[in-house]
């Protein structure tokens, strides 16, 4: 049923859809370094950005890419980088800077088999914990997982919006299968897409307190060169941005950067539920594995098994408010994932004896099939 507002139907691979999503969200700066299986994002950005007065730059490594992204965002331009495991490891230091200096930016990690050089051309979900805790020290972070090419577009838009709204880096976890699957997707018209921008200061520059502890927990952010000169540092700082070692300034700062995420849980946590209303057994999955899980759940339903699916879009902060009621009402939970059990560990931690958690893990660079999930599901 094609209407005037149906948008544009296009055939894209996941990596290309991420680029389209970023551009639709207002991204106008990209810095990256080639790495399989994320390279197509750099390639598409290098082709697309200059045409919309944006800037693409291929940096000397991933450390530099992350630094340039932070710099561009400080100057007021929405910025992104994309990489895979080894490059993501290199970005961790500057990612921590973006957390502590509260610089909005988006980092795409297209997961491949690890550790180290690992299995570069094959799928994995091994970076779930690295995305949460990769940089040193306590820090809040938002991590979103994509499972389809359509997701790659819409979740990327969402990632930029969350990063602008909460002044935080947002990590998109894609995987090799999602990144390279070509699918027909619908690109909405620009007017249909909600695009959020960081709140900028509107007070006179003399009154601007760049890291003010306000009720939202998110201080307005000025761009360099707009009259609000302030200091940006990776050191723990006071409300004016100046380094501090005073416990009475450190504690409110740390509390605020956690609070700005925690008090907006409802806005940040995204879980797609399918057939969960009367479910007795539940599959919790994310990324490409959730597609196998969806089919397994539907087949189980056809066989009379009351199965449901909770597909995690938000991985971190873990969507506890949504997941706890689900865990409480089902007999058993299966967590299939392409790692040794990174997300199932978190689910077990939340579970506290409410239900039985079983895992299905694969680390050989191939996908978990619907049949494998189905076989486990009917025995739960």
């Amino acid at each position: 049923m094609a209407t005037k507002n149906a948008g544009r139907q296009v055939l894209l691979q996941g990596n290309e859809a991420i680029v389209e999503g970023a551009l639709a969200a207002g991204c106008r700066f990209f810095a990256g370094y080639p790495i399989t299986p994320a390279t197509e994002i750099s390639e598409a950005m290098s082709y697309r950005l200059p045409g919309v007065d944006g800037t693409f730059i291929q940096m000397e490594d991933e450390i530099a890419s992350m630094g340039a992204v932070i710099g561009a965002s400080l100057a007021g331009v929405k910025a992104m980088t994309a990489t895979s495991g080894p490059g993501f490891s290199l970005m961790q230091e500057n990612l921590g800077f973006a957390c502590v200096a509260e610089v909005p930016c988006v980092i795409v990690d297209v997961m491949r088999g690890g550790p180290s050089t690992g299995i570069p051309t094959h799928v994995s979900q091994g970076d779930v914990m690295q995305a949460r805790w990769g940089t040193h020290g306590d820090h809040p972070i938002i991590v979103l997982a994509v499972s389809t090419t359509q997701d790659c577009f819409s979740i990327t838009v969402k990632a930029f919006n969350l990063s602008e709204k909460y002044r935080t880096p947002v990590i998109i976890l894609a995987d090799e299968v999602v990144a390279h699957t070509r699918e027909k997707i619908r690109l909405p018209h620009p007017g249909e897409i909600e695009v959020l921008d960081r709140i900028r200061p509107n007070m006179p520059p003399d009154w601007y307190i760049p890291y003010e502890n306000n009720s939202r927990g998110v201080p307005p952010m000025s761009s360099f060169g707009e009259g609000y000169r302030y200091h940006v540092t990776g050191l723990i700082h006071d409300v004016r941005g100046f380094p501090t070692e005073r416990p009475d300034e450190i504690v409110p700062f740390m509390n605020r950067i956690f609070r700005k995420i925690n008090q907006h849980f409802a806005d940040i946590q995204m879980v797609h539920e399918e057939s969960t209303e009367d479910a007795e057994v539940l599959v919790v999955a994310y990324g490409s594995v959730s597609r196998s899980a969806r089919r397994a759940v539907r087949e189980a339903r056809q066989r009379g098994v009351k199965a449901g699916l909770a597909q995690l879009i938000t991985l971190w902060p873990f969507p506890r408010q949504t997941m706890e009621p689900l865990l409480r009402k089902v007999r058993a939970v299966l967590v299939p994932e392409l790692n040794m059990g990174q997300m199932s560990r978190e689910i077990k931690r939340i579970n506290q004896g409410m239900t039985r958690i079983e895992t299905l893990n694969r680390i050989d660079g191939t996908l978990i099939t619907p049949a494998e999930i189905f076989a486990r599901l009917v025995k739960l």
Partner: protein
Amino acid sequence: MAEDTKLVYKYLRHDKKFPHVWCPGCGNGILLGALIRAIDRTGLEKDEIALVSGIGCSGRLSVYVDFNTVHATHGRALTFATGIKLAKPKLHVIVIMGDGDATSIGGNHFIHAARRNLNLTAIVVNNNIYGMTGGQYSPTTPYGALSTTSLYGNIEQAFSIAELAGMAGASMVARGTVYHASLLDELIEKAILKRGFSVVEVISHCHTQYGRKNKLGGAVEMLRWQKDSAVRLEKARSLSQEEMEGKFTIGVLVDRDLPVYTQEYRKVREAAKKMMARPS
């Protein structure tokens, strides 16, 4: 002198909790003064300047002055600066780094920033040591010198920062010392106004860590060494290799016009727009 003090005062952040972190006699204060005088001479507004520093004693410089300032991560100041400059080309982006900052942990960023020739000004304070962490050898610590990690004498060869920058493709390379303060003003001013990647290597001293360990005396003695060892480029040209032994040249060492990155990228944008306008 009173006017000079007033000028420095104009650019300092008075709400920052002074005093600064530097030892009495440190060269960083002289550099800060030179930087302020140079910026004032260019006539640029405070708001047109983005000052990015790395980590170490020199890295603390950015917090004291009233510009758009970033105290970046160790070695990565140039990468932050690259993002700022590309996102807002009208800003004059000045980067302050130490010798270990720029040529060890940030060595890769340093040579690639020079090669790329983005319109940035990099000021590298070379005091031959990692001062803030207590005096470990750096890529510019002379062969044989003592440090807390070369207690038997340094066995590594030192980088020449200025030569490295020149070979890597910088548009302008200069060397000065904190002793020759008025020359330093001029070199920094010239570097800020230069189109393309400009580097000013600032020979400084760390009497607290390097001087004490190597029995080179205090700040005064080390400044005297700078006075005695530095030779103006014009004069150095007339000296033989033997006469230059143990000495170094100061002045503008490289000054050339090369394609600047932002200018080149404008061409990329035009080409991309032409391509997009073509009916598919």
